[in-house]
C-alpha cells in the first residue's frame, strides 16, 4: 500500500543535489501557482512534463497518480463553469456555462498539473530519508525533521499492525457495511492502534536512550554541489525567468 515508486532511478534529476531540488521545486511551485496568463501556464506544463521525461519514471505509475489528484479538478469542472458569474457561452438546461468559469477552471487545471508533475520529478524522486536530511541542511527546525523521520519510519510498522488487526477481525467474521457495529469495530481497531503506538513509543524511546540518543539524528550522507547541479541551476533559473517574462508580457 505504501511505496515510494519514484525515488528509485539513476537519471540526471535523481542525481541532483536534493537541497537544490527542494529549493527549486518550492520557488517553481509558487511561481506557477501565482501565474495567471495562459502562455506562462502552458509553458510551465510543458517544462514540468519535460522534467518528468528526463526523470525516466514509470509512465503508467505517474499517470495513475496524476489521475487520482485530478479528481478534485473534475469536481471543479462540474461546478465552477455553472456557478461562476460572467457571460454565458451556452446553456445546459437552466444553467448558463460562463466563459469566465471555464477560463478559471482551465487555469486551475494547468497550474495544478504543472506543479504536480514538477513535484513528482523533483521531490518525489527523493526518498523520505534523503528529503529529511536535505531539509535539515536547509535549516528546517530539528524537531520537525525528527518528527518527520520517526513518523515515516513507523508508518510501515503501524500499517503492518493495522493489517494484522483487520485480518484477525475478518477471521472472526467481520464484514464491513453501513451499520453501527462496523463503525464500532473500526473505532476500537483505531483505538487499539493508538494505544499500541503510544506503548511502542515508550519502548522505542527507552531503547534510543540506551543507545546514547541525545536528540539529534546524524546523517552520514554528504551532499555535494556538482557540475551537473550548476548546469541545472542555470537551466531552472532560465525556466523561472522565462515563465515570469511570459506572465509579464501578457499584462503589458
Amino acid at each position, binding site marked *: 500500500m505504501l511505496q515510494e515508486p519514484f525515488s528509485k532511478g539513476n537519471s540526471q534529476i535523481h542525481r541532483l543535489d536534493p537541497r537544490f531540488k527542494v529549493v527549486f521545486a518550492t520557488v517553481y*511551485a509558487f511561481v506557477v501557482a501565482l501565474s495567471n496568463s495562459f502562455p506562462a501556464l502552458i509553458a510551465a506544463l510543458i517544462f514540468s512534463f519535460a522534467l518528468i521525461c528526463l526523470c525516466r519514471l514509470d509512465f503508467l505509475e505517474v499517470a495513475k497518480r496524476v489521475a487520482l489528484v485530478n479528481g478534485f479538478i473534475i469536481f471543479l469542472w462540474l461546478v*465552477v463553469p455553472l456557478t461562476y458569474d460572467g457571460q454565458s457561452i451556452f446553456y445546459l438546461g437552466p444553467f448558463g456555462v460562463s466563459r469566465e468559469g471555464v477560463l478559471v477552471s482551465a487555469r486551475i487545471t494547468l497550474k495544478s498539473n504543472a506543479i504536480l508533475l514538477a513535484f513528482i520529478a523533483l521531490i518525489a524522486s527523493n526518498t523520505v530519508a534523503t528529503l529529511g536530511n536535505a531539509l535539515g541542511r536547509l535549516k528546517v527546525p530539528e524537531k520537525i525533521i525528527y518528527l518527520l523521520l520517526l513518523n515515516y519510519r513507523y508508518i510501515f510498522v503501524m500499517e503492518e*499492525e493495522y493489517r494484522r488487526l483487520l485480518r484477525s477481525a475478518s477471521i472472526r467474521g467481520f464484514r464491513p457495511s453501513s451499520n453501527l457495529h462496523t463503525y464500532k469495530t473500526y473505532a476500537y481497531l483505531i483505538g487499539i492502534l493508538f494505544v499500541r503506538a503510544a506503548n511502542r513509543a515508550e519502548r522505542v*524511546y527507552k531503547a534510543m536512550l540506551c543507545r546514547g540518543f541525545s536528540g539529534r539524528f546524524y546523517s552520514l550522507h554528504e551532499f555535494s554541489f556538482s557540475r551537473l547541479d550548476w548546469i541545472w541551476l542555470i537551466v531552472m533559473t532560465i525556466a523561472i525567468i522565462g515563465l515570469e517574462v511570459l506572465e509579464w508580457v501578457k499584462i503589458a
Partner: protein
Amino acid sequence: MHISEGVLSGPVLISGIALAAVGVAVGLKKLDYDRIPRAAILSASFFVASLIHVPIGPSSVHLILNGIIGLILGWGAFPVILVALTLQAMLFQFGGITTLGVNTVIMALPAVFCYYLFGRLVGRQPCIALSAAFVCGALSVFLSAVMVGLALTFTDENFLKVSYLVVTAHLPVMIIEGIITAFCVAFLKKVQSDMLPE
C-alpha cells in the same frame, strides 16, 4: 481533507503559511525532545488510521480524525499534521508545497479548537464524555470543511457555491467521524485513559 495545488490565490496561500508557522511554533515549543518519539509514532498511527475507508451507504469515506488527534496531542497537532501532510505529498502526491501551510491550518486549527472545547469534558462521566467526543469528532470535520470553503471564497468570491457544496458533501463524513470518535474515546477511557486529557 486538503486543497489541491494551483487553486488558491497568493494572499490566501501566504496567510495559510503565516498561521501554520505560528501554530507549528507553539506546538513545537510545547513538545519537549523526550515527547517527540511519542508524538511521531502516534502520528504514524494517525496516518495509517486516516487511510481506512469506512463504508457509508453504497460508497465509502476515509477518516480524517482531526478531532481525536486534537484530544490526544493538543497543540502538538500542528507539527504532527504538518509532517503528516508532507508525507502524504511524498507518498501519494496529495497536496503539495504551496498549499502545505493552508492545509495544515485547515486540519490542525479545528483540532486545537476542539481540544480546548472538549478536552475537559472527555474526562467526565461516560454520558457527558461520549456526547462531547461525538460533537468533537463531528465539529472538527465541520470546521475543517468550513475553512476549506473560506480559503476558496477568499480566493475568489465566485467559489462561494463550490464552498457550500464542499461543506454539504462533508455532512455524512461528520456523522461518521462523530460516531467513530465517540466509540474511540470510550475505548481509550477503558483501556488507557492517560492518553486523553485529564
